[in-house]
């Protein structure tokens, strides 16, 4: 569905991404993990179109999108959420989610200004669709008219997910969906992600630091460290990979771990 081949991105002398390659299979959850500054968000930014990689290609549905503008990629069906919530703060929950439907609507300027025919029908249809597929699904009914700025953090994250869902995306990029959430909120979010995958077969890419959740729900894990891809595989394979353990715990920790293991 989505593949990144030998992508490299540098800001001056700093290599944010260095020869990263992986394929996110259709309908599966791919997690991207790595220590802080490993290049996870940069990877998301080249996929969603904010940065253009200096080398390498990005293929979406066998189409080369490496040089496409961000809004064109959205039209193709790539949606994302941000690490620091990027909701439209002056609007209600409902209006935020409606914006997710932007690419699927076709109301023109004149029809919009007079609010006749097409515009009126389309707005009613969008509303019904959002109520069914997003608000009901993500359990947001009680806050649909609330201004987003007044909502607690966990709910804002959920509204942002809802906005992405309203795009009916083929690929969904989630940048730290459970960062700063408590156990219960994390479990809710994990359940929503699995439900999205099951209900619409959406291909999901996920950047996350919560290892418990990553290992529980992903089909494939990509590990980055200092921009380089140090491991790729199923959660079990990655967890057993010495390079990954080293990146997370440091060299001495690895030797200590092996040392304590030896007597047994």
């Amino acid at each position, binding site marked *: 569905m989505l593949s990144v081949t030998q992508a490299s991105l540098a800001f001056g002398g700093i290599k944010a991404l260095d020869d990263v390659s992986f394929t996110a299979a259709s309908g599966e959850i791919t997690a991207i993990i790595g220590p802080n500054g490993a290049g996870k968000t940069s990877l998301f930014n080249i996929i*969603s*179109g*904010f940065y253009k990689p200096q080398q390498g290609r990005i293929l979406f549905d066998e189409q080369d999108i490496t040089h496409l*503008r*961000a*809004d*064109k*990629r*959205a*039209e193709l069906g790539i*949606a*994302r959420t*941000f690490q620091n919530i*990027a*909701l*439209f*703060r*002056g*609007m209600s929950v409902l*209006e935020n989610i*409606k*914006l*997710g*439907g*932007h*690419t699927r*609507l076709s*109301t*023109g*300027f004149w*029809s*919009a*200004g*007079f*609010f006749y025919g097409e*515009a*009126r029908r*389309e*707005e*009613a249809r969008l*509303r*019904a669709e959002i*109520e069914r597929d997003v608000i009901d699904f993500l359990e947001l009914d009680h806050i649909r008219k609330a201004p987003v700025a007044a909502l607690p953090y966990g709910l804002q994250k959920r509204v942002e997910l809802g*906005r992405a869902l309203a*795009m009916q995306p083929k690929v969904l990029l989630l940048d730290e969906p459970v960062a700063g959430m408590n156990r219960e909120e994390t479990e809710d979010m994990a359940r929503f992600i699995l439900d999205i995958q099951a209900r619409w077969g959406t291909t999901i890419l996920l950047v996350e630091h919560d290892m418990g959740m990553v290992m529980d729900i992903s089909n494939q894990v990509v590990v980055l460290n200092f921009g380089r891809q140090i491991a790729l595989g199923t959660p079990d394979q990655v967890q057993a990979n010495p390079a990954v353990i080293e990146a997370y715990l440091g060299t001495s920790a690895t030797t200590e771990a092996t040392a304590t293991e030896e007597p047994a």
Partner: protein
Amino acid sequence: MITGHFKTDYSADEGIWSNWPKRWGLVAALIGLAIFPFMASNYALLLAGQIGIFIVAVTGLNVLIGYTGLMSLGHGAFFAVGAYTTVAIHHEWPLTFPLITLVISTVVAAAFGVLFGLPSLRVKGLYLAVATLSANFIILFLIEQDWLAEWTGGVRGTETPNAVFFGIELVSQQAKYFFIMPVMVLMLLFAQNLFRTRFGRALIAIRDKDYSAEILGIALFSYKLKSFAISAAYCGAAGSLWAYFFPAILPEDFGLNMSITLVVCLVAGGMGRTLGPIFGTILILLVPEMLKVVAAAITGGDATSQTWVSPTRDILFGLMIIGFLIFEPMGLVNIWDRFWRFMSRWPFAK
């Protein structure tokens, strides 16, 4: 008192005249607008016409500043484009139907708006304000050129035509009022509708978080230019009405001074709301008149006191605006909102 909104389908919930105070408020406002000219003096009608025209222009500026979050200090120039296009059309074809002139003036102003909106691709905020400032000087410079003087009258200004509908010439203040107000009401409704659909939501999204708008598939540059075009078009329409309303126009009517007045009206009324431009314009254009009346009452119309009365009035007006910005930074709409919030709970709670 409204205890709740009971709706049975989504279309009803999406409506803008969703409850009886709004519906009856609209009806009352329209009836008020319609009977006002039969009760008002000529001077009051002059003020009303001016306010109506300014509301159109400020509503346009609201699309750009209030809803799209792009700053402009050059919209007085698009006002001028509208006014002078109307004069030029009547110079060439004296019998053009006024609504056709109005539409052409609007389109020409929109084209200038797009041109001066081009910097918005790269710059935002104060930088954009400075970039748009140039519109005042460039457009007024063009209007004052000798080779355009045949149509614009150059620096000395020009007389303007009266609108003629099916052989009826609109000469009196009252007749002109009935040309301006329907245009104003329609343009207000158009703007109001725009912001409940895909198009307007995209503009608000750009204001609130531009990169987030981009990943939802909103082409930033195209929408920013459209926003410039719409706002300039509203100012162009206002300019056209202005040319029909006043007997003569001068280039200096439209310069930086007008650009700033438009922004002040918007800020005083409240940005990003349909009612904002209405409240703001009425306040900013009426208060100097009230101060005039008060000053005349105090001095008893004594001519010798004129030397200090007029500057004092300006200082009072300035102080009032500063006070307003400090105590009501969200504009007059905020007071309006508070009033209705209070009313919805009264008499059970305060």
